[in-house]
């Protein structure tokens, strides 16, 4: 399984970015290879609107099986994400990527 996290940083200790569209980074964990990688998403800062759809496009290209985020995607992003076969878990606010992953594994994150 490939798990994507919206994150303020790029490591296991980084905090989850509660925003979907305007997340600083997308951190990816590949459960098979145990590899943790990160994709910079800071370019959306320059967009007044459309950050949600831009990030959804990026997520689509990364093809994760699971997305873990905080507040949850906004209306436009949610419309786009419906077209992606992926489970979405929210409310990981204030957790590190590691804690969010642990909570997801133990079934303690809310699925939307």
């Amino acid at each position, binding site marked *: 399984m490939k798990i994507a996290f919206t994150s303020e940083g790029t490591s296991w200790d980084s905090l989850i970015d509660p925003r979907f569209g305007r997340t600083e980074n997308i951190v990816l964990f590949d459960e098979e290879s145990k590899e943790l990688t990160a994709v910079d998403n800071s370019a959306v800062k320059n967009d007044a609107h459309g950050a*949600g*759809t831009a990030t959804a496009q990026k997520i689509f290209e990364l093809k994760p099986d699971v997305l873990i985020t905080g507040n949850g995607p906004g209306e436009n992003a949610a419309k786009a994400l419906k077209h992606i076969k992926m489970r979405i878990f929210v409310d990981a606010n204030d957790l590190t990527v590691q804690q969010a992953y642990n909570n997801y594994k133990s079934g303690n994150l809310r699925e939307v």
Partner: protein
Amino acid sequence: MTNPKPLKIAIASGKGGTGKTTLSTNLAAFIAEQDEVVLVDLDVEEPNSGLFFNGILTHEEDIFKMIPQWDESKCTLCGICPKVCNYHAVIQLGPTILVFPELCHSCYACSELCPVDALPMIPKKTGTLRDFQIEKLHFVESHLDIGEEQAVPLISKTKKYVARKYSHVSITIFDSPPGTSCLVMEATKDADFVILVTEPTPFGLHDLSLAVETMRALKKPFGVVVNRYGIGNDEVIHYCREENISILSKIPNKRKIAELYSSGKLMYRDFPEVKHSLSDILDYCITAVRGGIA
């Protein structure tokens, strides 16, 4: 006041809630005591000037903007459209092109650059324009539809309607949105004179200075009206003096004025000093624009 050159006055502010609508509605009603006047509420996200007038609806129309519509049967999934959309209003998720009408700025890039014509532009309703008449006062307002994010096209089309229909009226007042965003620039860019309404508080001053910068960038002649004069401090007055900005009037802070406003009533008839202020403000605008100063 019968002059061949029509006068367009925009009433704006940096800070919200300083009295744009109070000034717009009272000034328009004051002018309408003698002359034909048009008041246009361009704060299309939350128009409220209409609360002060009980007019006859003379015209109503839906306002549209053009958006692309995906024609799946023609599309070759070449990937050009999501790349050329600066607003992320068109994205490609594998075999699907998704269009987000609320994000679209109607720039036509995706539609024009599609090699197989798979994104024809179609009209989408974005708001409603209404035109009312109250004796010599014409009141035009537009409401942006819920969920719409692009207010600029609606503001632009509302101004075009007014220019077309009321070119013979000598004074038009535009009640602008608050802030200094694209909406404010769109609402004020055709004005001959801009009145910035502020209040004598630190917030009022902070946002006034942003609005002043905006008007200077737009090269607009402008002046300041200090509303709720008597509260806060003197910093707005000092700022205007230092920056060589004319203060057209100071409207006193009075509980009764707030009471009248909150019950949807105009206030100038109850306050002779406010009536004088309106007269001064109008004279200043006319003189500044029609060259009396030179």
